[in-house]
């Protein structure tokens, strides 16, 4: 469904991604693992057009994405739950969810999807008129996922959805990802929590300093003796600039 070939992204003189290739088959959960600064977030930014690749191709359902503006990539059927959630804090929960569906014109189906999201996350339903910034961290994560789902994506990208959540909530989030996948959404998950991610992923890639250093099926990779050294062995390096315009 998504194929990434030889992707290279630089921030100034720093190569954040240096020839990375991976693929996300339809109906699967694929995870990108790696330490801070390994390039995971940059990969998601490149797929969604937030970072411009210097080289390489990104193909989604046979269509080349590189060079397209972000909003067209989203309209093509991809949604991103960004790192740090990035909900619209001053807007209500309801407004946030509708923004996720901004470009949809199928009103009846849209209303059904909204109901379904309220069913899935009852806490969002009770707080629908509240400013999103007043929600707890876990609720904000639910909102960010709900907002992404409102666009009915065929491919959902998740950037560190477990970051900053209590262990119980982390479990809940991963359970939710599995359930979404069973409902037919293909998932590309970026995580630092390798153990948790590999438990639910069909396939995983480990990035280090902008290159793929390991890959394999989820369970296989989890048992790989080199996973820990490769995963933790990163030296501190340049981080991607903060998510900004």
């Amino acid at each position, binding site marked *: 469904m998504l194929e990434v070939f030889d992707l290279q992204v630089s921030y100034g003189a720093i190569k954040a991604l240096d020839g990375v290739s991976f693929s996300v088959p339809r109906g699967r959960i694929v995870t990108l693992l790696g330490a801070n600064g390994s390039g995971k977030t940059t990969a998601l930014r490149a797929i969604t*057009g937030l970072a411009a690749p210097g080289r390489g191709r990104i193909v989604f359902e046979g269509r080349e994405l590189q060079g397209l503006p972000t909003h067209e990539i*989203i309209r093509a059927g991809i949604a*991103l739950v960004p790192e740090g959630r990035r909900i*619209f804090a001053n*807007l209500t929960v309801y*407004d946030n969810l*509708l923004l996720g569906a*901004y*470009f949809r014109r199928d009103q009846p189906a849209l209303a059904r999807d909204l109901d379904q999201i309220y069913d899935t996350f009852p806490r969002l339903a009770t707080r629908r008129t509240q400013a999103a910034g007043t929600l707890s961290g876990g609720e904000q994560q639910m909102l960010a996922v709900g907002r992404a789902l409102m666009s009915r994506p065929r491919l959902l990208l998740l950037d560190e959805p477990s970051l900053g959540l209590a262990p119980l909530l982390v479990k809940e989030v991963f359970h939710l990802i599995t359930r979404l996948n069973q409902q037919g959404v293909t998932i590309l998950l970026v995580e630092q929590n390798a153990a948790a991610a590999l438990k639910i992923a069909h396939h995983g890639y480990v990035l280090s300093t902008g290159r793929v250093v390991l890959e394999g099926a989820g369970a296989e990779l989890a048992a790989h003796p080199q996973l820990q050294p490769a995963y933790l062995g990163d030296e501190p390096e340049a981080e991607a600039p903060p998510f900004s315009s």
Partner: protein
Amino acid sequence: MDLLTFLQQLINGLSLGSLYALIAIGYTLVYGILRLINFAHGDLLMVAAYVAVMGVGLFSWPWPAAFGLAVGLTGLMGVLLERGAYRPLRRAPRISLLISAIAASFLLENLALVIYGGRAKPFPVPEMFTGAFVWGGLFVPRLSLIIPLVTGALLAGLFLIIYRTAVGRAMRAIASDLATVSLMGIDVNRIIAFTFLLGSLLAGAGGLLWAMKYPQVNPFMGILPGLKAFIAAVLGGIGNVTGAVLGGLLLGFLEVMIVAFFPAWAGYRDAVAFTLLIVLLLLRPTGLLGEALGEEKL
């Protein structure tokens, strides 16, 4: 001062304050989404006034056609400004944008100077906006009633757009977190252009009303009202639309009341307005309804 005079001044204050409010909205809308002080905004008043002068005076069009065209072209001019002077600098340091805004302001003023010359032209005020009502001892120019009414109607429309439509929701989302909006499948450039269009249309209407209130049109006529409206926007808390309206009304009332209560100070009304701004900002740096700015917003 007796009640009658007070009432009289209240109406004058409401009329001046509405004008400030109408213009202040444009500053606050643009600041809200781009954190940019659009210094060329005041000059849009002048653009509207000149188009109307040409339409009514030169081509002898009926005034509704000339006024409509003036407002429309002013809206378009605002969009053009964004396209030409601000969009190319979206990723540049904010100071570059500011300088570009000042340059755009000079460009508009000097363009008008070249085209129309420096001599002030009289503004052809349509019959319907002249005259006054006299009730007892109360003298109310018709325009002083029309200005708040028009302003009220336009603001109602604006609030409907901002709070009741999908585009308005996208505008509020941009004000909240510009970088994330494109991830909603929203074309950020279109929403920004639309925001400039709205603010500039209001400035166009404000320019025509201003030109009828002070019927002299010259290339620099937009500077002072623009500056005052900017003060109003800051007073109310820049970025906040309701604040801009409150700030505009407050500034209008204060200016009128100062002159009414202390006629000897009449020549200092602008000085008083700016002093007020300094005092209020010392006491309340975020303005009346402004939120504290986090570092990322600065």
